[in-house]
């Protein structure tokens, strides 16, 4: 009986399910101060070859979400619940060694700080070779040739010489290229880039983003890019998910986010992007206050304490200080977590985005 169900379940799921489907993902950490709910009920889907940007402040749970998909959270003592479907396989149910076999092979990750993400004691070529032989039966000579090819491919000049360099002998941009080469060496289907440009010079940032986009096109890789900078994602992402206090608060196609964002937090993020075309006298408009402590979340809407508009919520919707809003689809593929009625949200959105555009003119 159970078998029949399982077979049916699989037959139903694998062809129809999107390439990546995260369903009700939650991550908890037990600390001495209490339980930290790092990720709470995160769901999203991603089609093969597409790019999703997860945007949020530090501590919003975006990195933990990524690491949970990679299966890295359990080793850190986190408790993961929910389902992560990657190419028809549910990852959260797999054993640690099964996930380990997928890591670096089916799915790969690059990190924020290339200065500290490469092992300082080993040559970069050897570190890439290590990633190859961990997943494939290849001789060291062949693996080294492959590593060299990949280093050239990600634009490392004089790769024949650099392959024997130690990380400290390379610049930050070069190191991030090495990280990208190492992540893509086994042609992963899914690449997660956790703030790949944050630690780099502005001039290098654009190069690295361009590189990721180019390689994505070549390899057909599905990409999740995590950033705190909404300005970064405009050119790269197909969809944007905005996270705040362990939850997705708004999710939509990229152009929809830039032109029709409805959640006050997203609007706040948009308003705080520095823009060259804005006047000198114009001041940035930061969101007041700080994100809540993950141990003591507000009982109602998590953004309410920092929200300028919460008093406009009508009584019929409930008090945002005590009622938690759900993530609802406000228009096709556009999800918003907010207690404000749709017409009020759209009016506020219009005003804010209009004033941003106005100040640009």
């Amino acid at each position, binding site marked *: 009986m159970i078998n029949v169900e399982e077979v049916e379940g699989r037959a139903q799921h694998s062809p129809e399910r999107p390439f990546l489907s995260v369903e009700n993902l939650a991550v908890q950490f037990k600390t001495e101060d209490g339980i930290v709910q790092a990720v709470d009920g995160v769901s999203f889907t991603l089609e093969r070859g597409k790019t999703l940007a997860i945007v949020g402040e530090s501590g919003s749970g975006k990195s933990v979400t990524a690491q949970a998909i*990679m299966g*890295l959270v359990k*080793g850190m003592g986190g408790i993961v619940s929910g389902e992560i479907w990657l190419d028809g396989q549910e990852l959260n149910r797999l054993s640690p060694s099964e996930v*380990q*076999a*997928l*890591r*670096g*092979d089916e799915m*790969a*990750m690059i*990190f924020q*700080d290339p200065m*500290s*993400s*490469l*092992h*300082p*004691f080993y040559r970069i070529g050897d570190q890439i070779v*290590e*990633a190859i032989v*961990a*997943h494939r039966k290849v001789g060291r000579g062949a693996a080294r040739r492959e590593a060299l090819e990949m280093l050239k491919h990600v634009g490392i000049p004089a790769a024949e010489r650099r392959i024997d360099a*130690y990380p*400290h002998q390379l610049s930050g941009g070069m190191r991030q290229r090495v*990280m990208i080469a*190492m*992540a893509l060496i086994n042609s992963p289907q899914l690449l997660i880039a956790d703030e790949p440009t944050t630690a780099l010079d502005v001039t290098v940032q654009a190069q690295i983003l361009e590189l990721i986009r180019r390689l994505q096109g070549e390899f057909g890789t599905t990409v999740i890019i995590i950033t705190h900078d909404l300005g970064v994602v405009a050119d790269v992402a197909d969809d944007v998910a905005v996270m705040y206090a362990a939850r997705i608060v708004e999710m939509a196609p990229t152009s929809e986010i830039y032109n029709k964002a409805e959640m006050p937090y997203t609007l706040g993020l948009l308003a705080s992007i520095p823009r060259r075309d804005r006047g000198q006298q114009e001041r940035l408009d930061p969101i007041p206050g700080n994100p809540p402590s993950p141990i003591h979340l507000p009982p109602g809407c998590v953004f309410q304490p920092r929200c300028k508009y919460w008093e406009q919520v009508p009584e019929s919707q409930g008090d945002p200080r005590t009622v938690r809003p759900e993530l609802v689809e406000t228009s096709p593929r556009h999800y918003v977590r907010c207690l404000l009625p749709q017409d009020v949200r759209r009016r506020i959105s219009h005003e804010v985005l209009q004033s941003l555009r106005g100040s640009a003119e």
Partner: protein
Amino acid sequence: MAGYVVRRVLGMVLLLFLLTLTVFFLFNMMPADPARLTCGKACSPAVIEANRHHLELDIPPIEQYQRFVSGIFFGRTFSKDTPRPIECEAPCLGYSFLRNTEVLTLIARAAPVTFWLAIGGFLTWMVVGLTLGIVSALKRGRWIDRTIMGIALIGYSLPSFFIGLVLIFFVILDWNLLPFPQWTTPDKDLGRFVQTMLLPWITIATLYAAFYMRLTRNQVLEIFGEDYIRTARAKGLPERIVVVKHALRAGLTPIVTAAGLDLAGLLGGAIITENIFSLPGLGSLAIGSVLASDLPLITGITLLTAALIIFANLIVDLLYAVIDPRVRVG
């Protein structure tokens, strides 16, 4: 790299020179009068003066030092103008008139005992300390971690004479598992050598392993928080490789530092352990020389011990460069 080694070796030579200077004058400024100690209570001033002359203590200290240093390189002769002059060939570290033997001969006789004691203890505590430290780090917070750290705390707190005496009492006297220690070299009688050294090794290893367990555990846990460990896991490497190749290697530097200096310190003589187990090593020799105010011997042993530490420092620094490519500059 070659330049680095040359610089370090030159620095070591300079340090050794300063060391002889310090040690020599420190001990020769001491109130004990070596000339007076050469004969008993009923000594006439004339005899003392004569002995002072034999011992070359009647010349200015600077000249004494010159002769001492030149003796190290070219050898020297004591009691020149007596019927029985004493030839001390280079390297001459001095002559113990109390024991009527060259200092170097005394040291050479005691050194193998200490060497075997130190090496055996060292290997034991490194294997035990590193293994249990890693296990403890991997099982952090579990009962096995708590047990290991509890044992480490006890081992760390107990003085070596207590551990040694308890071992002698139970293993040798009460349970008759081992014969009473009787020093012999491993080539003469390997069986008795091991039987003799087993308890001293355990005594020393208990003391040091406790420290290395804690050090290794802390290092591994600290390195586990590094970004490149996350990268290693993200590559899909097996946890065993992550721990040994990535974490332990990166955390090795302080362990190597401590190990080098601890080993060098032990090679200079484990005074308490040697005494408890009646091992005629450098520690016993040092204690004997101090109790007898045998100044040439004290000077010799101190120099040797200090030189060992300096040498160990050099080795440790060179090992850094082997471990960490970032050190290999210039």
